[in-house]
């Protein structure tokens, strides 16, 4: 996959001819005829009642605006479609030979991004089988994520068509950079799920299951090595899960279950740099200068181009890069569950599971040739094995004691403990040069090396490498071992009281205790070749080599990290106390309310973004005012605080909404509703930025950074309307809309800078989806349909700090003409 023209161009040519053809056909088919869908009664045949429907058609898509944003958000293109295919079979006497019930449904096939197939077959008393296949085509090219902050100024001596803001075609050397959506991807996710239950109603029940998730496809990424080089990644991830379970029901009203689950994860990605667009000189292979071009900040380097557009040979760039590895995670899980109402007035449920998983990464290779100017690194190879474990124990127990007819006591207990130790032993070989066009000097050491390095073929043998004072070791074996764990103990107890058949309340208390601990261990064996051998871990300290460093006869310095005892783990201990309470009421059969509250207070948090306390309230109401009108309301309020010194964290998420359902006749239904959502958060942040607000205080405890309050607000208005009107016996009209508008703000870190760090983007935008359609019953069992969908996305161009890649707006008109056959 390659990057094509994209980015700043807003208006793409409309597909007028195709769209007009679609409208014409809609008119011919429509012609004043509209149809109602018959109720599917099915046909009785061979001891089965069979219902079936199939709908196929063609979609016409007419798009104005950003194709990339449309494909990211909607991705419905023109073409033939299998809109739906459904079969239901039900045996009439419940004693059919192979199955008594079958349900098979499909939709989306033909090119839509989401295809789903679902199958359920069962034979009373003998088996029940379910299968599902889902495909998700996930195209991502929204031009406001991971973009470099390139100003519009091209570096001097650049190609005349060079533009730091545009993704130019790759076939025009010297012009192409990737400043827009460098992390776009086009992946496909296939999910399959199968489950079989044998003897579902017997005292011993067997369950088999298999799930597979496969994710594959191309995507783009970047890597920071001097600059940010542009990489093509081909994903290939698979997860296979096998499940075997058995239920025992020998004791009355009690079920014991055992499940053995095995999960196997496999990932075989490859990353390559295929963006070598710039020439470092005649006869030399082209190089990738990365995605960041900021002359004022000397990115990718000062004086990037020399006369004729030749790359400055001292500039950071890649001639080549590749990385590949094979990740394998093998996780068997044993699970025991219990459910019982054996004891009078007591409901019990419990679960215990143990997972012991292994992580292995095989054949890890990372290779780079080019130049990292700060360190003179010119050729680098890294490899090494990775191993890890995921050990998790979970235990849950719940009990409901029906003390009286109206009073229940509910208790839920949870314990979990998981640990993840992992280590990576990296063998690293580095070769240095001061220039892109000068081969590396290959040193011939007499000292023993911790790893075996294969020198590059194009190097100069028996020469002294050209290091800078920032160069790393020439050969090293680095072992990183990390450990992370969490223990969680939670218990919730509630009293629930049905005051009368129309009103109930509950009150409860929850205690949660978490301990999070991490630790790490590192050992390093390295050799620093001359010149500047006394660098890195062996840089002279007051003229003396540090501990662990040994000067060798060939002028190199060997380093072995001094053994030190494992340091204390970083431990975070958190105690949370919750008060939970609520009520429900049904004063009349037509009116119901519910109220729920959860109030939490903790003594600690793991991150500054986590709340130290919060209050959550939810109110729901529903009133059936008449047989033909129903009104619903919903209020949800969440307030959070982490108001400790140097955090000043506050936040809220408040939502208010209502909906009305009207059905004045059997032939007319109307739903409409509105929701307002206010989201706010703030926290003190520390950063450094040229062009930041003047006079900011210094960040306490961190030299060189300033501190500023970072508020974020988002106010979302959502409205919806849906109607269906069976105008005539053959004619039904559908219509409606989902309308979404958001306005908000966040902190601009660089208000004095020409290129803002924070842009309006989707935070100030509208998202409209009206639709309409007609159904016309052409003949018995045949229905013609014409459906119009509109997708409109608009980012507010007048909002403060719009970026150069705006607008990402689009307007899509889709017309779907289909024919449905059903019985």
């Amino acid at each position, binding site marked *: 996959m390659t990057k094509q023209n994209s980015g700043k161009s807003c208006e793409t040519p409309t597909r007028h001819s195709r769209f007009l053809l679609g409208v014409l056909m809609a008119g011919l088919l429509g012609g004043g005829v509209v149809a109602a869908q018959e109720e599917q009664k099915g046909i009785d045949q061979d001891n089965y009642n069979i219902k079936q429907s199939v709908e196929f058609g063609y979609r016409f898509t007419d798009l104005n605006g950003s194709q990339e944003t449309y494909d990211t958000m909607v991705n419905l293109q023109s073409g033939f479609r299998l809109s739906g295919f459904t079969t239901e079979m039900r045996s009439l006497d419940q004693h059919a030979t192979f199955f008594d019930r079958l349900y098979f449904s499909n939709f989306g096939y033909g090119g839509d991004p989401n295809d789903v197939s679902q199958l359920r077959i069962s034979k009373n008393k003998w088996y029940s089988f379910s299968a599902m296949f889902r495909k998700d085509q996930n195209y991502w090219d929204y031009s406001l994520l991971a973009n470099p902050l390139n100003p519009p100024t091209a570096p001097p001596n650049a190609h005349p068509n060079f533009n730091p803001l545009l993704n130019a075609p790759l076939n025009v050397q010297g012009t192409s950079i990737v400043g827009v959506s460098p992390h776009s991807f086009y992946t496909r996710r296939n999910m399959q799920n199968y489950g079989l239950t044998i003897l579902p109603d017997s005292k011993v029940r067997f369950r088999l299951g298999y799930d597979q998730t496969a994710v594959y496809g191309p995507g783009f990424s*970047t890597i920071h090595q001097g600059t940010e080089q542009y990489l093509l990644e081909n994903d290939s991830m698979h997860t296979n899960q096998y499940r075997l379970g058995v239920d025992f029901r020998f004791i009355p009203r009690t079920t014991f279950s055992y499940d053995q689950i095995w999960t196997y994860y496999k990932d075989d990605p490859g990353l390559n740099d295929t963006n070598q667009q710039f020439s470092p000189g005649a006869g030399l292979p082209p190089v990738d200068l990365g995605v960041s071009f900021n002359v004022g900040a000397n990115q990718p380097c000062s004086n990037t181009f020399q006369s004729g557009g030749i790359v400055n040979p001292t500039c950071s760039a890649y001639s080549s890069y590749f990385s590949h590895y094979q990740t394998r995670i093998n996780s068997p899980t044993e699970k025991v569950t219990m459910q019982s109402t054996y004891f009078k007035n007591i409901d019990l449920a419990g679960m215990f599971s143990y997972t012991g998983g292994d992580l292995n990464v095989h054949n890890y290779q990372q290779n780079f040739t080019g130049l990292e100017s700060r360190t003179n690194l010119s050729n680098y190879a890294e490899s090494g094995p990775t191993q890890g474990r995921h050990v998790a124990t979970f235990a849950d127990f719940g009990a409901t004691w029906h003390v009286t007819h109206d009073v229940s006591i509910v208790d839920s207990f949870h314990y979990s403990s998981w640990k993840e130790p992992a280590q990576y032993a990296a063998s690293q070989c580095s070769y240095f040069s001061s220039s892109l066009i000068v081969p590396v000097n290959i040193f011939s050491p007499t000292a023993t090396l911790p790893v075996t390095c294969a020198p590059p073929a194009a190097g100069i043998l028996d020469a002294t490498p050209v290091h800078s004072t920032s160069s790393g070791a020439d050969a090293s074996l680095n072992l990183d071992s990390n450990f992370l764990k*969490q223990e969680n103990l939670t218990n919730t107890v509630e009293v629930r009281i049905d005051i009368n058949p129309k009103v109930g309340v509950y009150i409860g208390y929850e205690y949660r205790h978490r301990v999070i601990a991490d630790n790490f261990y590192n050992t390093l064996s390295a050799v620093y070749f001359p010149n500047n051998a006394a660098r890195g871990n062996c840089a002279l300290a007051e003229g003396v080599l540090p501990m662990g460093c040994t000067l060798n006869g060939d002028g190199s310095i060997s380093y072995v990290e001094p053994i030190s005892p494992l340091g204390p783990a970083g431990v975070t201990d958190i105690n949370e106390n919750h008060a939970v309470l609520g009520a429900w009421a049904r004063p009349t059969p037509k009116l119901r309310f519910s109220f729920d509250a959860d109030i939490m207070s903790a003594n600690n948090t793991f991150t500054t973004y986590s709340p130290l306390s919060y209050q959550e309230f939810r109110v729901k109401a529903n009133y059936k005012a008449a047989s033909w009108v129903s009104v619903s309301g919903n209020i949800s309020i969440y307030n959070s605080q982490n108001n400790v010194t140097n955090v000043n964290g506050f936040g809220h998420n408040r939502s208010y909404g209502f909906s009305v359902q009207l059905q004045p006749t059997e032939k007319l239904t109307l739903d409409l509703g509105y929701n307002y959502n206010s989201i706010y958060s703030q926290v003190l942040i520390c*950063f450094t930025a040229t062009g930041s607000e003047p006079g900011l205080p210094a960040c306490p405890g*961190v030299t060189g950074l300033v501190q500023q309050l970072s508020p974020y607000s988002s106010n979302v208005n959502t409205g919806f309307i849906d109607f269906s009107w069976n105008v005539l016996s053959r004619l039904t009209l559908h219509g409606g809309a989902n309308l979404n508008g958001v306005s908000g703000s966040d902190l601009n870190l*660089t208000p004095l800078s020409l290129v803002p760090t924070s842009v309006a983007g989707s*935070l100030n935008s509208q998202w409209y989806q009206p639709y309409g359609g007609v159904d016309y019953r052409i003949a018995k069992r045949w229905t013609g349909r014409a459906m119009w969908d509109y997708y409109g996305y608009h980012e507010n161009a007048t909002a403060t700090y719009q970026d150069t890649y705006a607008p990402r707006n689009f307007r899509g008109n889709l017309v779907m003409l289909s024919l449905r056959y059903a019985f």
Partner: protein
Amino acid sequence: MAANSKASGRVPLFLVASLLIFATFASGQAPPQVVDKSPQSATTPSPSEPAPVDSKYLGPETCKTCHEEIYNNFVTTPHVATTMEGKLEANKGPEWHGCEACHGPGKAHVEGGGDVSKIFSFKNATPKETSARCLACHQNREEQSNYSRSAHLQSGVACIDCHSPHHAETAEFLLKKNPPKLCYGCHLDIRAQFARPFHHRVNEGLIQCSDCHNPHGGFERKQLRTAVGQDEVCYKCHMDKQGPFVYQHEAKIEGCTICHSPHGSTNARMLNQNQVNLLCLSCHSQNANVGPPPTPTFHNQAQKYQACTLCHTAIHGSNSSSVFFTP
């Protein structure tokens, strides 16, 4: 590391656990009991209570004589299986079969000329009472085994608020409406979230609310399901983010919602904030003994990075880079 080094310990563990649990119940095994579903009963019809003899039960054919339309619909639903001879091996007896399995014995109702006070009425019962009727049969599966402790029942939502044995819109699971419209009827705020431009494909039909949430309750908050090994439900599909990793992004301990809005968001990648850098700086600011490190002083926010993830690409975890530069 040997993958099977722990395997030998699992079998004795399972056997010991099973024996302990079985011994607890076997020692107190009571004789088989019949459910008392009489509407005259002063107590909540609990599945564990004894019930009278079957002379009060008439069978579904009797119900059909007056309620023919409902009966004709009933025989098209999976509940018709309760009328089959020998169908329910675990639950034998007329009190488990047909209409009277839910509505209780019908003799008094018939003899009373259709007196509605002589039979169990779902309309006038509490959510706990109506749900107990359904759970008498359906509680023995893990899917429904936690309903008595669920947030739904806690808020007065009964089984029949979502399911309709007689007037279901969907043949599958006898739901009153197709999901997600069924869920949106109460969860209006969630409907609004899925209407935002960046959202999980629930409205498109790719996934359903019940893929992540168990509407019948569970052991997790918000009635969330779990991935295998009781990990976050997100990893059912996003397994590449699960790990374990050598270099962990420890914020994941707080859950994926520390950075993402799982239903829908106006921000790309369903992030909680529009600007990636501000989201990262929310945690990577302070210098503390534990927790994330602050950003280094050479990270000039004005120069390169509209998003920290331009360089820190493997932000969910890495096996090769302590700063998440490479996967």
